[in-house]
């Protein structure tokens, strides 16, 4: 088990480093950050000043290793660039310094620190809705197999999977916020309860596809489980049908759904990018779009790094969790 975890962690590290390296150099291929940040009105002199301040006038390889924290700091605006004793310090990822955002004039950690909790709130509410709606619908469909309610639910899941958020989002906003006024019209609100209220509609929209998938998986799994011997035995010994379903069938049918939830998290954050844009939800998704548009390299790099680490850690944890839940799986095999 430990060997497996170490192997996976090493692979994860290699993948993250490769992705970070690739993205770092891709940003430079995409264009000149100074020109993009300062905009089309920038004077050559402003661009030169910016490049000097951010260390962008140094060789790219030096910038990269300085970013990682292996070579000394190249950013003149960092306090580490010139320490009190006159020497140059390190200001890279290894030192926990993600740099300063080009356009926000603020440390990247602070910029992300504001945005991340908002995306997590949206994503967690979306997962909650996915599970509540998806599992309920799946169970109903399985128990009422081939009846009209099953057909209706399956049709609904088909529609739910087919409709992208950029279609459902604006329609939901138009109908439920603009015309009916049931939900706030986009935005984030200003206090915690308000945040949750503002998150309801975008989370529901974000949850549609996931809920539809879970409903289909749950239906299939439950139908399969209901045929198992242990369920038949439970029925035979006179257990009430609701208890049979709850205790013996649903519990077993849930395992693949748990795996699916784990695997869907990165997609959920990806989907949140579009949803955040539509619902003016000022989270990490919107920040990512802005940063890519303005070529705000330190923020792009930090987001990539964060997602990279999160996906790798998530996958590793999912493997470990499955092994822990199901003793038949041996990770060393």
């Amino acid at each position, binding site marked *: 088990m430990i060997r497996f975890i170490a192997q996976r962690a090493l692979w994860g590290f290699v993948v993250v480093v490769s992705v970070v390296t690739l993205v770092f150099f891709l940003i430079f291929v995409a264009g000149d950050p100074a020109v993009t940040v300062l905009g089309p009105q920038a004077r050559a002199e402003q661009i030169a000043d910016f490049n000097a301040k951010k260390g962008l006038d140094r060789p790219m390889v030096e910038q990269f290793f300085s970013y990682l924290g292996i070579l000394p700091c190249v950013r003149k605006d960092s306090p580490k660039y010139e320490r009190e004793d006159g020497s140059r310090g390190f200001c890279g990822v290894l030192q926990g310094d993600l740099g300063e955002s080009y356009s926000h*004039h603020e440390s990247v950690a602070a910029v992300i620190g504001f945005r991340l909790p908002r995306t997590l709130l949206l994503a967690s509410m979306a997962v909650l809705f996915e599970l509540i709606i998806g599992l309920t619908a799946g169970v109903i469909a399985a128990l009422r197999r081939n009846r009209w309610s099953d057909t209706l639910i399956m049709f609904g899941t088909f529609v739910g999977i087919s409709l992208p958020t950029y279609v459902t989002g604006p329609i939901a906003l138009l109908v439920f916020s603009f015309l009916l006024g049931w939900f706030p019209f986009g*935005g984030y609100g200003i206090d915690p309860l308000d945040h949750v209220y503002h998150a309801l509609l975008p989370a529901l929209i974000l949850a549609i596809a996931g809920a539809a998938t879970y409903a289909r998986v749950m239906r299939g799994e439950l139908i399969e489980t209901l045929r198992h011997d242990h369920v038949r035995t439970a029925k035979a010994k006179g257990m009430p049908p609701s208890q049979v379903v709850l205790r013996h069938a649903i519990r077993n049918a849930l395992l693949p759904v748990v795996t699916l939830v784990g695997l869907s998290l990165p997609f959920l954050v990806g989907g949140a990018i579009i949803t955040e844009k539509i619902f003016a939800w000022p989270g990490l998704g919107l920040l990512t779009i802005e940063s890519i548009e303005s070529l705000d390299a330190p923020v792009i790099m930090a987001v990539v790094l964060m997602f990279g680490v999160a996906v790798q850690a998530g996958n590793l944890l999912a493997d470990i969790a499955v092994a822990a839940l199901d003793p038949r799986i041996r990770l060393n095999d």
Partner: protein
Amino acid sequence: MRSTPKTRTRGSRWVAGIVTIAAAAVLGGWVITHFPRAPIGPRFVGADQETPRSGGTLVFSASSNIHTLDPHFAYDTLSTAACRLLYDGLLDYDYEGKMVPSLAASLPEVSDDGRVFRFTLRDGIKFHNGREVMAEDISWSMHRLLSERIGSPGYPFFKSIEGAPDYHVGKTDVIEGIVVLGPKTIEFRLDEADQTFLNAIAMPFAYPIAREHVEALEKAEGRTAVGRNPIGTGPFALGRWERGVQVEFERFEDYWDPRARPDQMVFLENISSDVASARFRNGGIDIIYRPSKVNRLFLRESKAWAPYRAEAPSPSVFALGLNCELPPFDNIHVRRAVAFAIDRSKLERLDPGKVIAATQVLPPMLPPYDPDLPQGQVFDLARAKEEMRLAGYPNGLPEPVTLWVRGEGEVQLAQFFQQDLKAIGIDIELKLVTFATYLKETGRPRVAQAAFTGWHQDFPDPSNFMDILFHSRSIHPENSENRSFYRNPELDAILDKARPEVDRTVRLELYAQANAILAAEAPWAFLYYPIEMFVWQPYVKNFRPHPVWLNEYRNIWLDLPRRRVSQSVYSPKVSR
């Protein structure tokens, strides 16, 4: 025995199906007939008060977020708009675009040679921390702005101050050309006469900021902390800032100009134009600009909204930049042919109320713009063909021309002109690139044959368009501001003469000559001036578009309490 219940079940299913469909139809019909309609006019009106009074909260929004509230870094539209509430400069612009004193008691005394500007501050101006503003504060703020340590993008606008370049690179500790003559008097001495210096002084970069506050913050939390904890002299002080969500500004009681203002301003960030427009029509936002296209067309046509709507050209120009170093645009006649071949009225038809056809580099509100400029670029197919003949291409160009475009919007625009240029035998091939690539590559000589381009003024002076975009000094191996690589010694001489000229009439006459040259020589084929649309709620008073500042809301007052009105008052039946 089996068949009977089966038949009954099938029959009952049919009945159930029909009942369900009927119920759904009834329900659907009810929903359709009773479903709320979109509001056709304002949902709220004011209290009909004549006298301006302070109070209430003004809510407005933008589709992006404010990057900083530190004026020394405010170089984007939204940060500038926010800083306009928090700070004041020595000078400002009135609604006619004329320069007026703000923190300064009057316009500066200018020496005969146009190199020395002496300002005296008003009495009783206070920072938001209650301390009175002194000339020393102006000097300290300018030193902060121009220091290399801070690295403000505002430096190039002030480098004509004596000693500023040496100070900027750390060779000296003080800027020689900034001299405090008394508690309220400060003098700026320039290396050479430059009339645009006053425009620079009116930019947010030069807004003073409280020294003791900045020093304490920088020491405790680092340089960037100033951008989120500002202390200025403006009509509003910062209340709360939920980053990326909204900024709340509170009215500053000790502000020197006592006119009525809202108690609070709420600036919503990251609200897309669709969301903002819909929220506005529901009464959730008090003033909007640049509504989404559908809403713009609606608001433009709506009689109910007509009294609360304004359209004003933006101080910008958009054009096709033609690279004068590369064939075929090294030939003036080909450039002129392009300028005459483009039917700009198509643009006005494509997006009504969004643009007006451009004939010259200067936008309509900026003197010496001339609506009847004889050299003005207008659609004239016969002249375009004649220019192609003069260029030696009576049957059109042998090779297609590559036009660099930066996105789907420009592709659509370019497709319009493709047809126009085809008519004079110029084939256009589009090259779609990212914004970053566009900026990098079009700033290099001999790379892009033609590209969509444009300019938004930094300050209202013709030099800000002409010097920066067309002077040969603006051509560099990388990052040229003169992206058409146009060189004309005659134009350079006129611009060099105009910039320091103290006599305004003479100065404008020189720029009028330059304007005519640029229209005639066509380094840019001018396309359009964008129009900004503003719409406000009936209870929002004293707003009108400002010729310099895009979101100028500091002089608004609110006619409260607002009253909700039935939408039927706007219906055609009633109005008839």
